[in-house]
């Protein structure tokens, strides 16, 4: 079961945080098709946010076709998000190699992260929110 972590000072709208964290869980395989998302009650009891915020996030996920609400049962994952578990195609291993290389070049952790993000933004500019 996924757990949401709400950062009130991030400046990112609360419902967006839930959407993003759900998607990340889908991407990492923490959530798989058929899994049930926590109920609104469970989420708000743990995070003390307004229930409507959770529902708005779930509606957003439903609109994107990632989850579906089954009456009386809960909200369930319909499909996973694109990515295959990294190691089957060796992507993750190659990324690890790249990190070793960067480390050998004397790059700090922050430098690697900035480098990766710059390349990512150049290739796939951030989608409109």
């Amino acid at each position, binding site marked *: 079961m996924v757990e949401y*972590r709400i950062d009130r000072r991030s400046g990112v709208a609360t419902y967006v945080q839930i959407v993003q964290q759900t998607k990340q869980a889908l991407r990492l395989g923490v959530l798989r098709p058929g899994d049930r998302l926590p109920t609104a009650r469970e989420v708000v009891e743990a995070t003390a946010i307004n229930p409507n915020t959770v*529902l708005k996030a779930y509606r957003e996920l439903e609109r994107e076709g990632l989850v579906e*609400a089954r009456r*009386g*049962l809960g909200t369930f994952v319909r499909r996973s998000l694109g990515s295959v578990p990294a190691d089957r195609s060796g992507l993750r291993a190659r990324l690890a190699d790249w990190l070793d290389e960067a480390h050998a070049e004397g790059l700090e952790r922050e430098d690697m992260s900035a480098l990766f993000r710059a390349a990512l933004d150049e290739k796939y500019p951030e989608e409109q929110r």
Partner: protein
Amino acid sequence: MSAATAGDTPGGAAGRSAGTPRAGEAGEAGGAAEARTAKEAAREGAGSDRSPEGGRTGGRARPGVAVLRLHRTALLVWGGYVLAAVAVLVWTVTVTADAALREQARCVGEPVCGIAATLAYGDRIGMVATAVCYGFLVVAAFAGGALFGRELENGTAHLVWTQSVSPARWLAAELAVAALPLLLGSAVLVLSFRWAWSAHRELLGTDWTFADVFVARGPATAAYCLCALAVGALAAVVLRRALPALGVSVASVLALNLVLDGFRPSLWPHVTRTARTPFEVSGSAWQIENGAVVGGRRTAELGPHLCDGTAAEVRRCMAEGDITGYYAAYHPPSHFWPLHLAETGIVLAVAALATGAAFLLLRHRTA
């Protein structure tokens, strides 16, 4: 309730999933809440972890039970007091009276004789009479202070009024729950006192006209208790603070008692006896006034023994003073009940007025 924040505790999710809801249960939850987005979602999937033992109790609120719960100590104290008074009376009428009677028998014809037991008998009966009669002062203190005053002062009353019980219903419950034991206890006290007082009249110096004996021998005892309760409630509703309400309610019922004590003989028409010669009314009568009839007018300022001497001297004296006879105004013992019931009625009327005023004021204050 749930655990701390989700992020803080790795065990949190497991703890929650243990309470995984049963499907389909969510839809019935929610009482009469308005339909809304969250509710819809709850029905759609979320489910509820409402525990099965969370069934609701049905029926109307029971403020009476709640009042008992809140004031159990006071109830126990009242019960203890009634029992103690009855015990003292029983002991006095059996053990002490025996000793006093033996003492009296010993004293017949003796010029020097201790009468300690007889005095103790009278003292103890008189003490209980005082306690039974003036118990209403303690009731007033309790009603103004602990029962209503403290609840209004510390907000317990507000707590109750926002449960499913209206202020008026709460006041009614408090009055009723307090009135019932007061009535029962008063009845026990009055009946036992009547029994004890009449058991050995020959040993008692107390008369039926004594203020405390007069009240303690009938329903006026209960009436004063109820009045003290009502006045305490009114004082508390007006002042909304325990100690001032206590002071005001005690002072008010004491004043009422003193006023009625002063007017007591006037509450029922008295008997007037006139005669040409001086006379004494029976010792058991309550004499209010006596004097001479001077020129057809009753004058209390002239005593019945103005003219002494031989018959001729008396005649002359009366003629000189224009005294045509003597009179006495009094209540015979048979007037006890009309006098007592009249006083009871007045006290109950005051109690009713105070109760009405308390309800009106409460209604005026709250929505």
